[in-house]
């Protein structure tokens, strides 16, 4: 299945793009997607632990299975205000 991924702040700079579309197998978890991305964008590895994942605008655990047509985002801890 195809997933659309958004990146923000430092993660966007590591990846060099605001958004990418990837083909991933069904039954892909957030953790598997993280691994895939780190392979593709090794710079993400350095701060991998503090990179937060969101699926369909909700904070997502690594075990979460990515649903069909999901909108996914990876970003560092937030700093608004």
């Amino acid at each position, binding site marked *: 299945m195809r997933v659309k991924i958004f990146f923000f702040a430092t993660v966007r700079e590591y990846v060099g793009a605001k958004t990418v579309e990837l083909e991933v197998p069904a039954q892909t978890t957030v953790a598997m997607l993280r691994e895939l991305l780190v392979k593709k964008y090794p710079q993400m590895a350095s701060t991998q632990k503090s990179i937060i994942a*969101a699926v369909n605008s909700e904070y997502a655990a690594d075990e979460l299975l990515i649903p069909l047509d999901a909108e996914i985002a990876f970003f560092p*801890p*937030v*700093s*608004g205000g």
Partner: protein
Amino acid sequence: MDYPTITTITEMELDLDALIARVTLPSTGAAAIFSGIVRGMTERGNAHETSFLEYEAYQPMAEAKMRQVAKEIRSRWPSVEGIAIVQRIGRLYPQTPTVFIICTAAHRDTGVFDAARYGIDRLKEIVPIWKKEVSPEGEFWVEGEYIPKSGE
């Protein structure tokens, strides 16, 4: 009567008077307001100057999380009447307001100060907005410390 809840992310200049008017009801007698401001000179910790801040947001999620913060405020302080949570993004220079959290209530002793404080603390934990600080020495992304739990 339905209590007004305003949650906005905008690149426009913030208009405090207009915002207060939108969260003021006939029964309102108090508004607690927090505003964050771009600090040009930092003395605490690593003393430095700031030229400007560059804000970005994951807009749909940020607005959803702002609505969640408002909901959390209402469940903790049922006497709060109106709530406004407004974040300005883009390039913001020192002495510029960046965010307003407004909670209104009938009286000041209703927890309305704590409600506004909770609003800004929670925004800094779960609302996906980031700022890059640009100073004469260079630039760096400001990162929070909070890691939200799944579904939070």
